[in-house]
């Protein structure tokens, strides 16, 4: 018999305490005497030391000692070693990154895992971890699927290690701190890893792995199409490519890397304009500084006196209905604020509190304080956003806030918030969030079986590459989520079987048969016997 915690056996020393205690408190032997007449006249005294040296070993004391000994034994965790192999807790972590789809490696990972679970890991307690897309524990291998984005394995391995003795990662490159099954495939992949498009220029970054080569890049926008042969250095060296032109009227630019390779997902990229190229802002009320600040924002067309617009501003009067309306109130009960609440909203980014309160502010009336408080000065709500209308109660005199740098910064924020990049050529990447223009939070169509999320605030996050269709204020817009990730461009990886022999004698532990329960039961029995005996004696 062995013990899990032999140190607990030191508690057997408590038997000595029991013996000492029993010396002091020996149960009096019951004796019937003909009369107590004389005994009662004899004064009571404590037992002399001489008497303590010769304790009477009673059965009751023996049972108590046995109960303590059994309890200590139970606490020490006694066990008997068996020859039955102990089930190890092993976590199998799968790399579901986009590149693993090259060469059918997702299915190969499943197959390798099955072989292990039915072979050397049979009888072990296996758990499966993968990012699909969030890092999580899978119920079974059938839930495993690849995603069209990069997966960072580090947090996944860390999570898997929490409850496992061994971690085996299925991927295509070595992972520190874990055993791995490496599944490589054909190399030589060429990929588009970056795309940006402005009104005047298209910029792309390309990369090829393996040998240097020439690749044909096709660019399409509107009725135009060009094809250009690009020399790629190979071995993963990236190369930039740009094309200048007038793309101001272009709704969509599409790049395609022609030619066969084993991984087509990173051969295309698209930039899409999700709204009109210009933002029309209508301003009602006399406020020249405001018109100048708005006019300074690129792509903004200021239309004084109102009219149909994406952004409308009303100075001391209700603004017209628009994607975003701003109602500027002359402050009532004006005060110079001493402390401002945190400025974390996109609309307040870059603003300096000392400039905001330079000319004084006023608390919004209760009716306009509803919604999300944006500007809070001295505990009073000065600005609030609710139901598409932003209320502000700040002095706009030329010598106040309007004369500070925070003023044009604020209106730049307002335009960005109202348009949300609707007028620019946007590129959506898988695995990275993208804020859709206001009013675009309505997805009409997505690829079959696509993994994506779309928040109520219009934040879109796709894990499946392909075409998505949104309904915007300007009609339906098609966007394409592309991989565009250099980390996923090298599909070759390394092929290597499991770098750990689960069947090695040193790796195998044998099951222990715990005897703690028996010892605890025995302790209970001794305790009951001691108790019963004591009752009987009394």
């Amino acid at each position, binding site marked *: 018999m062995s013990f899990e915690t032999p140190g607990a056996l030191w508690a057997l020393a408590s038997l000595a305490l029991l013996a000492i205690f029993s010396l002091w408190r020996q149960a009096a032997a019951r004796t*019937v005497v003909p009369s107590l007449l004389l005994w009662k006249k004899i004064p009571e005294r404590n037992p002399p030391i001489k008497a303590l040296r010769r304790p009477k070993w009673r059965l009751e004391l023996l049972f108590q000692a046995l109960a303590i000994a059994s309890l200590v034994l139970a606490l020490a965790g006694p066990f008997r070693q068996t020859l039955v192999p102990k089930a190890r807790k092993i976590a199998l972590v799968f790399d579901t990154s986009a590149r693993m789809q090259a060469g059918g490696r997702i299915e190969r990972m499943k197959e390798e895992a099955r072989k292990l679970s039915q072979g050397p890991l049979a009888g072990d307690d296996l758990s499966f971890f993968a990012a699909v897309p969030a890092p999580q524990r899978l119920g079974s291998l059938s839930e495993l699927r690849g995603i069209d984005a990069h997966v960072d394995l580090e947090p996944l391995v860390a999570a898997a290690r929490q409850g496992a003795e061994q971690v085996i990662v299925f991927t295509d490159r070595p992972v520190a701190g874990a055993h791995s099954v490496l599944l490589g495939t054909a190399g030589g992949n060429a990929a588009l890893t970056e795309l940006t498009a402005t009104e005047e220029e298209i910029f792309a970054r390309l990369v090829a792995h393996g040998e240097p080569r020439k690749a044909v890049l096709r660019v399409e926008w509107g009725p135009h199409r060009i094809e250009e042969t690009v020399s790629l250095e190979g071995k993963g060296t990236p190369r930039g490519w740009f094309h200048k032109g007038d793309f101001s009227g272009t709704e969509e630019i599409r790049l395609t890397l022609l030619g066969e390779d084993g991984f087509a997902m990173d051969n295309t990229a698209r930039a899409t304009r999700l709204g009109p190229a210009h933002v029309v802002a209508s301003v009602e009320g006399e406020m020249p500084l405001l018109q100048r600040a708005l006019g300074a924002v690129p792509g903004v067309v200021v239309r004084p006196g109102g009219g149909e617009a994406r952004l409308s501003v009303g100075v001391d009067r209700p603004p017209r209905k628009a994607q975003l309306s701003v109602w500027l109130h002359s402050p009532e009960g004006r005060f110079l604020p001493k402390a401002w609440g945190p400025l974390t909203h996109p609309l307040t980014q870059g603003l300096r509190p000392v400039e905001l309160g330079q000319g004084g502010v006023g608390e919004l009336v209760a009716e306009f304080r509803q919604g999300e408080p944006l500007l809070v000065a001295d505990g009073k709500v000065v600005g609030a956003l609710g139901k598409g209308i932003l209320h502000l109660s700040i002095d706009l005199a030329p010598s106040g806030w309007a004369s500070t740098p925070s003023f044009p910064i604020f209106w730049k924020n307002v335009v960005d918030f109202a348009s949300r990049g609707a007028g620019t050529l946007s590129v959506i990447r898988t695995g990275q969030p993208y804020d859709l223009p206001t009013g675009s939070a309505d997805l009409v169509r997505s690829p079959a079986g696509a993994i994506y999320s779309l928040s109520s605030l219009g934040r879109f996050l796709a894990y499946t590459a392909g075409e998505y269709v949104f309904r915007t204020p300007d009609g339906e817009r098609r966007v394409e989520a592309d991989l565009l990730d250099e980390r996923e461009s090298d599909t070759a990886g390394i092929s290597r079987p499991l770098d750990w022999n689960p069947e090695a004698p040193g790796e195998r532990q044998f099951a222990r048969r715990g005897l703690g329960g028996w010892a605890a039961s025995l302790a209970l029995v001794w305790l009951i016997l001691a108790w019963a005996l004591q009752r009987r004696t009394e």
Partner: protein
Amino acid sequence: MLFDDAFLRKLETLRFAVRRSIVGRREGERQTQRRGGSSGFISHRSYTQGDEFRAIDWNLYGRLGLLYVKEFAKEESLPVRLFIDPSRSMAPKFDFARLLGAALALVANQEGNSIPLRELEALELGSSFVLPTVGRGLAIVVSDLWDESLRPSLSRLHCETAVIHVLSPGETEPALEGKVRMVDAESGESCTRFVGEEERAEYRRLLALHCAEWKRWCFDRDVNYLRCTSATPVEEVVKVYLREAGVLE
């Protein structure tokens, strides 16, 4: 056989030694101060009408010319009452007490009493011990005298009384050792003491005082007091102790 032949023969030679005048109903062997009878001369008295004619002392009449009647002591049986304490405290010495009682009953019966031995046999341990009022004769009380309420009962016995104080060896030399919870056999009351040599010596001293007190009490009331232990053979108690104490002769 309760007793062997030799002891039974010895019992036949024994009789109760009585210090007081006693009056019995039946005529027996015991000589009393009751006038009459024919055995021992006691005194003369003047003749009165009705006296037996043969009782007149004619020799005295010849010398004095007066009629005197001779008076003789009357031989009567001695009523003996035997009281054995059956209380629970007597448990360790009850058999001894009954055996002693049987021996005394045999002596009493040969003096004209009729104490049935069956009653002794039927006596049960644990019943209460009550002494009735006895006017004459001899009362023999066998008890361990732990019950202080016995004193008034004994005082009410207006007759020759002998108290045989029986103690068991466990009472005279208690074998208790260590921490002991002692339970009173009579009342069930208990007390716990550590008993060592010191306590045992103190107990022996208190017991000696207790016995001396009873002896003094009996002496003051003209009561015969005899102490013995139940370990002593009954024969020895009867032949030696009781004779030395003046209960038997």
